[in-house]
């Protein structure tokens, strides 16, 4: 990548020359040059501090996800409970970040409404540009959080796919086992019926015993099938909820973007409003003088007429 030219050194030289020519003494010169080297730390408002903290927590969340990503996705490294716990932690984290962003947003809104109460006395910190800037900060934060959520959704989708694909062959196997057992029981029954004539009562007992076993197996297998059905529907529901959550976060970020655009518009509107106000004041004063003059002239004319007639 190409390099750029840092002209700050040139600028310092020029500053020194100009200061000398303007007759600054040594101490002032030293102070000025020192300010270049040691930058005064920016005074941060509480808002900015809170925003930076939220950013830190989102970054921490990203790190956490990166660390546990392999564990989460790979089938053999963790058990279901560990995965559930990871999921739980991550969603709790997301909720906490979301709350922080909400607090920041409410802070801006309350500041806006407060400053509106004091018409004449507007504190320096609450002009339109600053409010637009704060909205921008909140918007950036929520976009960041949204991207993290999307990443996490993708991981969850992978997990579900794995789980579902694992469920499918199990069911296939079960069905095969089922049919096999059915077949085997059928063949057993046929065999037993063939041997029926040759066998006596103890064989019939055995046959019944086998039938019972077969039926019991059947019942067990169908109940397992039901359980698997239930799990599937639950997973589908979970994925739908997943999508819902992500769309909610997306909605929020959209709302915040809307607010931000409105704040920028408000800046422009305030300018127009100021212009209109100055015009109105001018017109007001001019109309007042006209009115006074008019009444004055009328009074005098009435007095004059009275005196005349």
């Amino acid at each position, binding site marked *: *990548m*190409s*390099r*750029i*030219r*840092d*002209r*700050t050194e*040139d*600028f310092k030289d*020029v*500053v020194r*020359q*100009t*200061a000398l020519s*303007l007759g*600054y003494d040594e101490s002032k010169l030293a102070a*000025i040059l020192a*300010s*270049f080297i040691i*930058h*005064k730390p*920016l*005074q*941060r*408002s509480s808002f*900015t501090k809170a*925003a*930076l903290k939220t*950013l*830190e927590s989102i*970054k921490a969340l990203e790190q956490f996800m990166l660390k546990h990503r392999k564990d989460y996705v790979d089938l053999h490294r963790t058990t279901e409970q560990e995965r559930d716990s990871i999921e739980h932690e991550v969603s709790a984290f997301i909720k906490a970040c979301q709350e922080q962003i909400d607090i920041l947003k409410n802070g801006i809104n309350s500041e806006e409404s407060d400053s509106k109460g004091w018409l004449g006395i507007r504190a*320096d*910190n609450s*002009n*339109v*540009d*600053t409010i*637009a*800037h704060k909205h*921008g*900060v909140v*918007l*950036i934060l929520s*976009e960041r959080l949204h991207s993290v959520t999307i990443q996490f959704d993708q991981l969850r*989708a992978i997990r579900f796919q794995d789980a*579902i694909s694992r469920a*499918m062959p199990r*069911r296939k196997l079960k069905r095969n086992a089922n049919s096999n057992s059915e077949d085997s029981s059928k063949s057993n029954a046929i065999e037993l019926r063939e041997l029926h004539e040759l066998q006596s009562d103890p064989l019939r007992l055995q046959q019944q015993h086998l039938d019972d076993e077969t039926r019991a197996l059947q019942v067990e297998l169908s109940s397992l*099938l039901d359980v698997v*059905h239930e799990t*599937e529907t639950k997973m*589908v529901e979970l*994925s739908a909820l997943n*999508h819902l959550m992500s769309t909610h976060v997306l909605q929020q970020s959209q709302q915040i973007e809307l607010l931000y655009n409105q704040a*920028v518009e408000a*800046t422009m509107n305030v*300018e127009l409003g100021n212009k209109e106000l100055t015009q109105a004041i001018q017109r007001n004063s001019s109309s007042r003088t006209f009115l006074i003059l008019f009444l004055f002239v009328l009074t005098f004319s009435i007095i004059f007429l009275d005196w005349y007639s």
Partner: protein
Amino acid sequence: MALNLRQKHTECIARMLNLNQPVNATGTANEEVYKILIYDKFCQNILSPLIHVKDLRKHGVTLYFLIDKDRKPVHGVPAVYFVQPNQTNIQRVIADASRSLYDSFHLNFSSSIPRPLLEELASGTLNSDSINRISKVHDQYLEFVTLEDSLFSLAQKSSYVQLNDPSAGDREIEEIVERIVTGLFCVLATLAVVPIIRCPRGGPAEMVASALDQRLRDHLLSKNNLFTEGGSFVSSFQRPILCIFDRNFELSVGIQHDFRYRALVHDVLGLRLNRLSVQGEKGGMRSYELDSSDPFWVVNGSLEFPEVAVEIESQLNKYKKDVDEVNKRTGGTDGAEFDGTDLMGNTKHLMNAVNSLPELTERKQVIDKHTNIATVLLGEIKERSLDSYAKKENDMLVRGNIDRNELLGVLRGKGTKMDKLRFAVMYLISSENINQSEVESVEAALREFEVDTSAFQYVKKLKSLNASVATANLASRNNIVDWAEKIYAVTAGVKNLLSSDRQLALTRTVELLMDGKPNPEIDSYLVFDPRAPKSSSGTSHMRGPFKEAIVFMIGGGNYVEYGSLQEFAQCQQPVKHVIYGATEILTGVEFVEQLTLLGHKMGFGSNAAASTR
């Protein structure tokens, strides 16, 4: 090393937005994450094709303002200024600093700030005692507009008029040459290459080339120069060639009507900085963006218009088919199949459908956008019969003359005044010998339609000057290029009679220059090599085949040349890269307006009585 100008430009701007600290992927805990961006009008034009507002937020920019706007103080954030280094901007910066609008100022100038302005800034801020607010001052060398991956413009208006103005003094011409050289230097600094410069003799091209060579030499001698290539005699395989041309080299391309999609959109609808506003179908103006993120535009930009319409149709059909398939798989089927497998299949298809929906909506939007543009274009073409203009102009250039009745018929037919004027000027340029009576009848026809003929007169004068030079001095180099241009145009036309496009003289010349084999046409071209010591003779190995080229047109370029150069580059084996740039990107109408202005200055104005030659 493929020169992708747009990518490098975007990287430089991203770095600037990151307060000139290198952008690393992981991102260290940067204390100053949120910033405010302030720019002036010129730099707004630089930024708008490259970065959208959403991307600004990714770099942490919360607000962005024009420098002239009235701004309120915002505490606790650094402000990044990206402005041109001139007097008014410096005054504004001093005013802002004294009003303590922001806590720290990072000043970035789009080209090198000269010493006197720096002194002014220093004295202004010292006097208002706000010197501690200015943290950094940088020269960005980004004073050009990148429109596409290989297309840039210096956004310097009316340079053709100023350079060819008969009343221009030496000092003014030098100023313009300085500005062009600054712009070219910025482009080279962003690409971080020191090319070998070639240009035809005489004219503004030679002036710009020698000034640029001088500038590069001076810069390479100074410490911490911007070009990191090591070694003084790098093999020519790695250095690109910079070809500088003047608009007078091939005047016809700037004027003619072209029928390719990109050129049409630019000429007829007014594409500016990759943005376009057209009348929507339901009434009301709609604004579209056409750049490299639009897949249809990238693929089909250089096709002729009827083929573009066919492409839109086919894309629309493909989209409809995809939508039908998605619908079939997920919904609307008989829901009687409710056993396990189908339920599983259905949910999987549902998820696929949900994932593919955004992609489908995006495709639909692109198709709608191009349908709208094509419809508006079609209306204009029908109204002004632009297709017949384009075809007839092409025929004229290929054959060299045109039937007189046909010519007058076109002039009396459909089309705006500008179209007729352009056609007449094209006739003048393309005809090999000027038939006086025909020219007079053409002028009469133009005057009949109240078309301002100053541009026509100007080109006539230009042509007569060239012709007289030709007959006077056969050995002069200039005219070999003129002759070669005509010969190549005709031969290329004959060669390409079966194919639809005619290769431009510019493309031919660039091809020869890139090959580097000695050729009578380009032997007269000067060579400048800023890295070689001044006394060394032009070593022949520096003229070897080049793989990359930067072509610069002084006085105005357009999309036709860009398209033709890209085609040439793609057809080569191995694929070469050509970057095309100009002082500004002009439509045919704007260029003819500049010619009209020149005609007025020469005294061919309509109020001057019919001047006899």
